């Protein structure tokens, strides 16, 4: 019968609908941003097609390109998850930047200083987890402070996390120019000494920078999904984020959840920094982390705060950053144009109504609500 066939078809559409609904706006936002970006390149006197060809080649055109794209994507996944998790709890963590930087500083410090302090060389099985754990701890504390301030005093986390960023930046500048500076007489840069071999995560394939940190990032994304969807704590975080009053009424200790959400969020950002140090750079250098905080926000929004979405958005971000170098080499268009395109992506994701209007999409979906005034 015709009607039963129709029913079947509509059932099939319904089963892919949720994914379609979630993914359609981000995909169209990326497309629109690339079109607008092409116009900007054209206006600035470049050849957009050549630019995008270079971008594509540099991002995914070879095994090495893929390897580099995952290297770029790794910290984005951790930091994007950090912001996404806070979003789920109704909190806006603009402080991923500072949490990441302190995580990197702490991991580096444990990495080069601990064997010296103890006077023995540590086995990797002890040293590496200590270094990574210290980085996570530093990030967790840096995230928990604005969380605690919000829960206790109502001080808004948006401003406080930004202030914590500047404090972290000043602190790392002080440390890397002073007490923690690489004592090598040839060194003129604000950076730490190299960490010990026992604190390093080895690369997977010799000759490529692709490292286990990326695999860990995927596992952590799974863990965050599990935490949010399958545990009581995750349920409490989501409830407190969706409607704090209802959560309070249902017996959730919202203040506690705010602190825990911000602590977990900071921990993930700290992990991003720790992995960059232990798996990639083997030291922390000033200025390496500039911009991760805002990128993480864009990634969390583009990924619709879903861990899988965050992973995909991070890969896209990593691919763009990575490919931009080749683009600049081939076409002399500065890599910074990527920042403009990424900002446009964020604009179109945030103002999804513009994208819906452009492409005549009617589907409504739930909106992320963060602004609840400044008071507590």
């Amino acid at each position, binding site marked *: 019968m015709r009607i039963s066939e129709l029913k079947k078809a509509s059932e099939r559409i319904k089963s892919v609908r949720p994914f379609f609904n979630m993914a359609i706006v981000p995909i169209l936002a990326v497309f629109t941003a690339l079109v607008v970006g092409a116009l900007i390149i054209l206006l*600035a006197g470049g050849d957009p097609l050549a630019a995008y060809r270079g971008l594509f080649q540099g991002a995914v055109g070879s095994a090495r390109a893929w390897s580099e794209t995952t290297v770029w994507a790794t910290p984005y996944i951790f930091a994007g998850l950090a912001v996404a998790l806070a979003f789920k709890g109704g909190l*806006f963590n*603009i402080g991923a930047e500072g949490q990441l930087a302190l995580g990197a500083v702490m991991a580096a410090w444990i990495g080069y200083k601990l064997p010296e302090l103890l006077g023995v060389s540590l086995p990797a099985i002890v040293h590496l987890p200590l270094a990574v754990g210290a980085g996570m701890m530093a990030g967790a504390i840096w995230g928990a402070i604005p969380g605690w*301030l919000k829960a*206790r*005093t*109502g*001080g*808004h986390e*948006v*401003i*406080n996390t*930004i*202030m*914590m*960023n*500047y*404090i972290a930046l*000043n*602190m790392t*500048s*002080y440390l890397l*120019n*002073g007490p923690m500076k690489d004592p090598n007489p040839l060194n003129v840069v604000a950076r730490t000494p190299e960490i010990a071999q026992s604190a390093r995560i080895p690369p997977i394939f010799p000759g490529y920078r692709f490292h286990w940190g990326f695999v860990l990032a995927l596992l952590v994304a799974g863990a965050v999904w599990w935490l949010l969807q399958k545990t009581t704590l995750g349920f409490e975080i989501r409830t407190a984020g969706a409607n704090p009053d209802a959560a309070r009424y249902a017996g959730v200790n919202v203040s506690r959840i705010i602190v825990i959400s911000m602590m977990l969020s900071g921990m993930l950002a700290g992990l991003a920094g720790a992995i960059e140090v232990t798996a990639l750079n083997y030291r922390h250098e000033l200025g390496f982390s*500039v*911009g991760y905080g*805002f990128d993480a*926000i*864009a990634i969390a*929004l583009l990924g619709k705060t879903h861990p899988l979405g965050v992973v995909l958005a991070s890969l896209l971000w990593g691919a763009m950053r990575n490919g931009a170098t080749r683009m600049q080499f081939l076409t*002399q*268009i*500065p890599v*910074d*144009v990527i*920042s*403009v*395109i*990424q*900002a*446009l992506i*964020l*604009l179109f994701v*945030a*103002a999804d*109504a*513009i994208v819906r209007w452009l492409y005549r999409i009617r589907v409504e979906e739930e*909106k*992320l*609500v*963060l*602004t*609840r*005034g*400044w*008071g*507590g």
Partner: protein
Amino acid sequence: MDWRRLGFIGLIILILIGIVILVGGSRVSPLVIVVSMLATTIAVATPLTLGALCGIYCERAGVVNIGIEGMMLASAFFGWFAAIYLNTILGVAPLPSLLAGVLVAVLTGGLLGLLHAVLSVTYKVDQIIGGTVINILAIGISGFLNRQLFFEKGSIFGGQVPHAPGVLPRLRVPVLADIPVAGRIFEQQPIAVAAILLVLLTHFILFYTRWGLRTRAVGEHPRAADTVGINVSRMRYANVIIGGLIAGLGGAYFTLESVPSFEPLMTNGRGFIALAAMIFGNWSPFGAWAAALVFGAAQALQINLQFFREQIPPQWAFLQQAYIVGLVPYLLTIVILTGVIGRTTPPAADGVPYEK
């Protein structure tokens, strides 16, 4: 503004001035230090005051604006670019170039204000996210164009940063500027003077005009305002754009009044500190100005300590570390936001999109 918060502001400024006198008093007369601190404080508080006024216009109308930082950064860049372009490419004299630069900066701010209004009033995007979009957009565009226009070979300026037309000249307040020693406080550059005039003007507009009453009405109770025939969307659009224009003037301070150059990310969180000043000042122009002066004093401390680097006694050696003294404004912001020095109340409908 209540006495408790006003007292706190006075106390902090006194402490900050006291530190400089303790350090440098042996070499320079304390009076000169006080004058120098006050003059620097007023000057460096300028972008904070203007940023806070931008916040007041937006939030009194019910729109949270955390994009002030981005508005100032973009304005700083475009104003500077316009001034240099006029001066070096078209050969316009320095002063008209600078003034045109200020105009371009103000318009850039207004344009971003319009964008924020479109996002938050028309499309009802979450206002915190909308503000973040503006911040990221400003960082991207100013960074890209700065590189593309100045540092790339074959660009307008041939890969070389040209000599800037300098900065805006100082104005002398008649009579007051002639006072010996203390007259220095009344010699300020035009944007600093404009900021103070705008504080007065904003106070008058908000509390003594029909426009101000309507603005406050749509920020406190848009439904009631709508019922008596006030167009809520139009009021919000207008106020957010006005706020943007003022933030644009704040942006001009960075590249046309403070230093004759542009650095990526040069606003350095001043837009966010301005928000804290607005909150501490209870969304009133005078309160926000007083709070901005505290942050200005904290920054003036850092600047003035640079003069007395050698005088700093060894047990206070940490004061030599610019990184550590530089923390003061940020720590102050956090302390102020905790509300221990008195809580403030935002407009009731702040941040809530209006659904008809």
